Every structure is written in C-alpha cells, then in structure tokens.
C-alpha cells in the first residue's frame, strides 16, 4: 500500500513539474482560465476513466466506451429534437449506456467471452448503430436546455468539470467504502479465491460493465451537450485516451490494483501534456510520440514497483 502511495505522490510531482515547464515555455499556460480549460478538456475522459478504472481493476478491459459515447449522444440528441422532456432524455442516454454495458457484461461474465473480444465487438456494433439511428448525420437544432449540462458555468467552474469531480468522488467512495468495491479488487486480484470466499464473481463482473456503460452514457450526453449536437463520429478512439489515463495513473492492467486518485492524476497529467504542447505550438505528430513515451514510462514504472514489492515481501 505504501508503495502505491509513493507512486501516486511521484505522479503528482511529475504533473506539477510538467506544469512548471509549460508555464515557462507556453504563453498563457499558468492562468486560472487555462487551468479551467484543462479541466474542461479532460472532463469527458475523466468521467469515462472512473468506470474504466473499475473494469481494469477487475482484470478486464472495455474498448467500447468511445462508440457508446457516440451512440448515447446521438440517441439523446434525437430524443431531444423530437421534443422529449429533459429528464427522459437523461434516461435515454443512461439507459442505452446501461444496455450496451449489460450486453458486454453478460458476454464476459456468463458466456465467458474475453473482455477484449466482447467489448471490441461492442465497439464496432455501437458505432454502426450510432450511424444507423442518425442516418450518418449530426443531429442539431436542439432545444436550449440541451446545452445546460455541457455549457453551464457554476461559480466560475464549467458544468462538465463539476460532473467529473462528482463522478470521481462517487467512484472513489464505491471502490473503497463498499463491499461491492472491495469485491472488484478481490475479483481482479484472484477470481478463484474470491469465488471460494463466497463472492458472486459473475454478478460482480456483470455489474462493473453495466455501470461502466451508464457512465459512458453520461459522458455521451455531456459531450453532445457541449457540442450542441449528437455527432455519430464523435468519441472515436476515446477508449485509448481513457485507458492511457488509467494506466498512467498506476492501475495495473493485470487487475487487482488501482485507485481513483491515481486515475485523476493520470487524467490530469495527460491533459496538461496535450494542452501545454498545443499552447507551445508543438507539431501534432511529435505530440503523439510524447504521449506514447509517457504511457511506456508509466507501464515500466508499474513493473518496477511490482518487482520491488515482490522482493520486499
């Protein structure tokens, strides 16, 4: 546990150093406006990263979140454009997210399809559905209330940032303070031992994917609200951004280890990196390489800390 704490502090330190460097080279980096801008730019990734943390801690992966963001965003926009009232539109987005997550979860838990395969199938199917329901076009012309979630500002803080903070807080509470949360760690650490200890492994697994789908629906609605339209090709490759944030945040892809706090800092670290490089006008291709280096560095750090942990034990 101490080592994990240490890794988290190292990441916080790295983020601060990174911020200091950019403050020196990029105009306008260190301002309240830009800090809010960074928080805003990572809000969608951050919401998705909470669910992804739980999935990865349980020893799985969910590749479908980007497509589900598009599908739920488009569906919500269609409902809103047809005069469906706001609370029902929220239900549409969360409900469709839940449905996609439940399908993936059932495939993983009961049909024993590897999560990589089940959610890869959902990635293409949900994307296809998004194009079918929208006829391949963006759905605009929405009522003004649709913009509330994505564009409102409360006490100077943008709505999506508040939403991300709330989801992260809730996620951290569920993972650390509830039996369900502890079961997720147990299942990811050792599913057989968990089953022998009386944990309903399949039910837990199913619930993780279903809840992750709900969060993807929330993210899809927020993104559509921010964009002012449901866009069928939105959210493309978000799963990669999200997995990168979770992995950089110290969650182990082999399961059993990871925290929401780590994920928050992983999300921020990547957000600061992208924003700073953009502000410093760094070539977009070089930015991609920089992100790759960061992901590899995080994975190596994870391996090293594990080896030290085993040596100490």
């Amino acid at each position: 546990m101490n080592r994990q704490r240490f890794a988290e502090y190292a990441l916080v330190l790295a983020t601060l150093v990174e911020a200091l460097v950019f403050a020196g080279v990029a105009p306008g980096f260190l301002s309240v406006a830009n800090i809010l801008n960074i928080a805003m730019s990572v809000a969608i990734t951050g919401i998705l990263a909470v669910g992804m943390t739980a999935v990865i801690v349980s020893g799985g992966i969910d590749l479908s979140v980007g497509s589900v963001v598009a599908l739920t965003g488009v569906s919500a926009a269609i409902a809103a454009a047809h005069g469906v009232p706001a609370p029902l539109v929220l239900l549409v987005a969360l409900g469709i997210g839940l449905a996609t997550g439940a399908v993936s979860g059932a495939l993983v838990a009961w049909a024993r399809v590897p999560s990589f395969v089940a959610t890869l199938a959902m990635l293409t199917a949900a994307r296809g559905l998004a194009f079918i329901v929208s006829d391949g076009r963006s759905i605009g012309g929405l009522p003004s209330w649709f913009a509330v979630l994505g564009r409102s500002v409360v006490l100077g803080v943008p709505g999506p940032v508040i939403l991300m903070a709330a989801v992260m807080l809730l996620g951290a509470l569920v993972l650390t303070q509830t039996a369900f949360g502890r079961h997720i760690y147990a299942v990811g650490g050792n599913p057989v031992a968990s089953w022998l200890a009386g944990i309903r492994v399949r039910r837990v697994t199913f619930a993780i994917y279903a809840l992750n789908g709900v969060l993807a629906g929330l993210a899809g609605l927020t993104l559509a609200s921010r964009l002012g339209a449901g866009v069928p090709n939105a959210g493309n490759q978000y799963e990669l951004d999200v997995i990168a944030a979770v992995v950089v945040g110290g969650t182990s892809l082999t399961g059993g280890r990871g925290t929401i706090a780590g994920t928050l800092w992983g999300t921020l670290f990547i957000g600061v990196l992208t924003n700073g490089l953009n502000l410093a006008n760094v070539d977009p291709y070089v930015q991609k390489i920089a992100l790759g280096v960061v992901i590899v560095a995080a994975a190596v750090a994870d391996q090293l800390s594990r080896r030290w942990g085993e040596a100490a034990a």
Partner: protein
Amino acid sequence: MPRRLALLLALAALAACKPKDASSDRATKTIGVSLLTREHDFYRQLEAGLRDEAAKKGYKLIVTTGDFDLAKQQSEIDNFLVQGVDAIVVCPTDTKGIAPAIEKANAANVPVFTADIAAQGGKVVSHIASDNVAGGRLAAEYMAKAIGGKGDVGIISQPELQSVIDRESGFREGIAKYPGIHIVAAINGAGVRDRALRAADDMFQAHPKLAAVFAINDETALGALSSAQTHRLNELVIVGYDAAPEALKAIVQGTQLKADVAQQPTEIGHRTIETIAAHFAGRQVPPVIAVPVRIVDADSARALAATPAH
C-alpha cells in the same frame, strides 16, 4: 486467409472463362465506384451526382465505399476487375497507397478515373475535383475583408489529407498578400467535431485576441463554433469549408461562423460520368478537371436555402 485467396482465385478463373467480348458488346456499360466513405454529406451528394448522370446515360453503377481503409478499397477494385466493369471511379483512401490497385486496373485495360482525391502512381485517365487551392484562397480573401486586413488568425487543420493540404496552402498563399495579418497557430483538429473543439479550446486559450479561424471542413468549423460560444468570443470570425446544411444554418443565424467555401459535390459526380462518357466515345479528355468552388456567406446562404436542394 488461404481459403479466401483460393476463393478469389476460383472467382477470377470463372471470370476468365466468360467470353471475352462480354464487356465490350454489352448494351449497358458498367462502372465500378469506390468512394472514400458514406459518412460525410459531401460523399453522399457526390454519389447522388454520379447516380443521377449515370441514370441519364443508361450506365449501371456498382457503388462501394472504402471506409478510409486502403486494404478494403484495394479489394473492392479487385472485385470490380473480376466483375468485368468498363470503367472504375475511385476516391482514394490514400493518395500514394492506391497506386498498385490502379496499376492492376491498367494491366486489365480498364480505364480509371479519380474523383475528389487524386492518386499518385498508375495511369489515371482524368481527375475530377474541386479546386481546393482556389478554395483556400477564397477563404483567405473573405477573412481578410471581414477582419479589416489586420490581426492574428489561426488554422484548425487535418494535415493527413491531400485535399486539406491544398486548402491550407491556398489559404496561406491568400493571407500572405496581407502584411497586417499573421497566422499565429495551426493545430490538428483531426477533421471531426469533438477533436476540433478541443483544439479550438487550446488555441483560444493561447491566443485570446485571435481575430479569425480558418476551419478546413464543416465538422471542424462547428467544433470551433461550439468552443467560441463557450469562450464568449463574440467578435471572432470563423470561415469553414464544405457548406453542409448544419453549417449553412449556423451562418444564416448570425453566429461566429461567417462564411463557408462551398464545393459542388453533385457537380463533381455529374462531370465524372460525363468525362467517362466522353472517354467511352473515344474522345480525348483533359487529365485534370477542376470543378469551381465559391464562397457562401449569410446572404448567399439564405438564397441557397430558398432554392430546393439539388
């Protein structure tokens, strides 16, 4: 994989067994079309133009889409050759990568035409596309007038595509004529709305006094518009590209999106089939046919909305 290869070979053998004169003596000519995608409104209109003109000429069209996937597009062209089409229209997913497929068609004596996106390598009878460099220049001229000939401007680009590179170079060329205007930022928005939104967020952050933005397509322009609205940049001028219905609506409504460069995808479709017809008739056709572009602002957009869509 070997099984699929065997199947393909078997099909090819079957096709070879067919009498050779099948294609030349057939009453109706068949044209194989491999689009870049059907996800963009632009390509839907281009397809409509192709179908429209082909119906008039009595040609049969086989339309497929490469979906931005070079391998898929190559196999589509292979299929066309097996099906014995009389001509192929391709909107390459990759300017250079498509060359081997075109060379294969050349070897089979099937004439190849490119629409919208050019190919490098292989023998293409004619390339029919918008004049994107001219489009970029038009955008620069409109922008310069709108901001009074001076100020800092930015570009949200997608430098992976030749047509976009042409737009950007035309734009830079046009802006170079105005010593008071400086291009201070160029960020990759990947051509899709959510990525362009993030790129615009960062651009407006780094350059809060930005006077104008050139967005290389309408998804990019609408992403930049969302960002400008949340940043309350009411004086900003955005110039987009493509004149898709949603963008035209934003222009008419008096948002920061002031104008669009309009391509004529339906016209590209028409001209492509006309060029193929001329080639079938044994006439010489020019290697490049540039379909004109024009600028659409609030006034012309209203006029456009008043006339029924073509």
